[in-house]
């Protein structure tokens, strides 16, 4: 690991000030991804500002919904009664990720900031435009079984690996950020992560030095019919090959509102408005779900080794919607 200066921040203003003053400084929260990447020399910050002591871990209800602190641990978020009762989709997504130990360490803000698990990104002997812009993409013509089938570019075919953000996207969540000028701003989760385009080194739309302080989720009527389906190589403690965050609001058996967000198929959580349009106004039947699934994967362009994700994605959407329909009765 490259040596770095360490300091522990006592307030958000000074933390933002310290990091924004040094282009190679970064925030340290749970460290579950950052420390790992530093050990591999993928991340080489000259300075870490430890924000884990800041008072940003509160989870509370607001007039519009709930606010979850950026530094609340994944475990505490998934288990908070406000989250379990009103947004079980979020609890399911968090609990599908990592292990108990990692969820005890990982924070909500850090979860949004986690980087891809593309092997070419992790291996500093390999070319990677995300790690080293201009060096090329090893995965495009290499081993790309876990890579994107939607929204990629010839510069990068990596996927966003997380689970939590897929659920947050489906729940119309908004990221609250403290800017370098001391002002706060918000970015909807749908606009937080980016597609790679020509700048795959940018995972998201945060500016250097900006600090996530909270994630806000508006009220909705999805709590009774939502499901997070994660498909992976083993039953637990593995990243998704593909995931589906599905949420429905029904009136009788007619679908009033729907959310379909796919995970691990693109550089960002991938919502399918096409699939949602198919679902709304239709009866909640397997036939409807199958048409929606076809619509969601219509534009998928698999690479050499990940063609399986297209059929897997369709079946996973149907199953997730079926599970969502019965989730409230479970």
């Amino acid at each position, binding site marked *: 690991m490259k*040596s770095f200066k360490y300091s522990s921040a006592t307030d958000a203003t000074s933390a933002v000030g310290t990091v924004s003053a040094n282009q190679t400084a970064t925030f340290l929260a749970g460290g579950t991804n950052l420390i*790992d990447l530093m050990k591999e020399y993928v991340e080489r910050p000259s300075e870490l500002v430890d924000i884990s002591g800041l008072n940003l871990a509160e989870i509370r209800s607001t007039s519009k919904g709930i606010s979850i602190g950026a530094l609340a641990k994944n475990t505490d978020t998934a288990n908070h009664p406000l989250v*379990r009762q009103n947004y079980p989709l979020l609890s399911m997504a968090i*609990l599908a990720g990592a*292990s*108990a*130990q990692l969820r005890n360490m990982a924070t909500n803000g850090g979860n949004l900031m986690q980087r891809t698990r593309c092997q070419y990104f992790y291996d500093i002997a390999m070319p990677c435009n995300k790690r080293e812009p201009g060096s090329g993409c090893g995965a495009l013509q290499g081993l790309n079984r876990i890579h994107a089938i939607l929204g990629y570019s010839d510069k990068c075919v990596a996927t966003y690996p997380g689970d939590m953000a897929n659920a947050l996207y489906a729940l119309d969540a908004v990221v609250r950020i403290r800017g370098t000028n001391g002002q706060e701003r918000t970015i909807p989760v749908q606009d937080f992560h980016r597609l790679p385009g020509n700048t795959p080194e940018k995972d998201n739309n945060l500016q250097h030095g900006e600090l996530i302080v909270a994630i806000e989720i508006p009220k909705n009527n999805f709590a009774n019919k939502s499901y997070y389906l994660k498909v992976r190589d083993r*039953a637990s403690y593995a990243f998704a090959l593909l995931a589906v965050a599905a949420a429905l609001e029904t009136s009788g058996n007619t679908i009033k509102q729907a959310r379909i967000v796919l995970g691990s198929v693109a550089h960002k959580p991938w919502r399918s408005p096409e699939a949602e349009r198919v679902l709304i106004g239709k009866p909640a039947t397997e036939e409807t779900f199958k048409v929606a699934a076809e619509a969601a994967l219509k534009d998928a362009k698999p690479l050499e080794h990940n063609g399986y994700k297209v059929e897997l994605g369709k079946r996973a959407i149907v199953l997730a919607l079926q599970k969502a329909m019965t989730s*409230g009765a479970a």
Partner: protein
Amino acid sequence: MDDNQERKDFSSTESDSQLSADEETLLDQLGITGAARRKFLGQSMAALLGTFAFHLLAKEEAFATLAAEPDAVFAQVPAVENAVKVLLKINGSTQRLEVDSRTALLDALRERLGLTGTKKGCDQGQCGACTVIVDGRRVLSCLTLAASCEGKEVTTIEGIADGDNLHPMQAAFIKHDGFQCGYCTPGQICSAVALLQEAKNGEASHVTNNLRTIAQNVALSDEEIRERMSGNICRCGAYPGIVAAIREVQSGRETAQAWHFASDEEIAVALNQGGKADEIV
């Protein structure tokens, strides 16, 4: 054991003649001959060291006696950079350390404090061998900077027992044979001990059925135990014993262990069956 007793026990054995030529040579090189050799072999056997362990032990001693080549190059031990002073409360005792900012809690425990019970497996958050309990929560010490632990309470496997009395989870791991090589065991046990509290708190897992129903003191099914322990990998595959140990402690219901040491009678039967011993013992 006095010398007479020792001679009586080992002078008539054929230990030496059972060694391979390589092993004979190795013991000769180590200067372990005659009575000393018999004592060495006897102690090895008394400590229940198997043949494999004996090989490792002998080889390790042999390597330790080798002199370094005159032109050998040694890695420079770097000076501490970006020193951070940190106060840790480890297993109830306060420790003040000055660490390189890069030092993982795992390395601080093992290399600075001599607490080598916590194991380094993958060193990148994928195996769980380094699991310790920090402020009541199980975490991975390999991905935790020691510098970030200022004032925190750390419990390692060395602090799990109550003096000489094993923690019930430790006793259950022994009873149910929850390990083979033992390398992942400290992490498994720290993880399992923390799991008990999580179930008391009513925390959910990926396999918990209805997350909207919240209850304390959750009774865990085997499926729940497996999911909640998925962050601790065991390459020997001792999972059935691990699940049995945790099930017993978590439920409070004693269950019979599924194995026993072979009795003299069973061994005698096995030996009389010539060539079929493996099927019985």
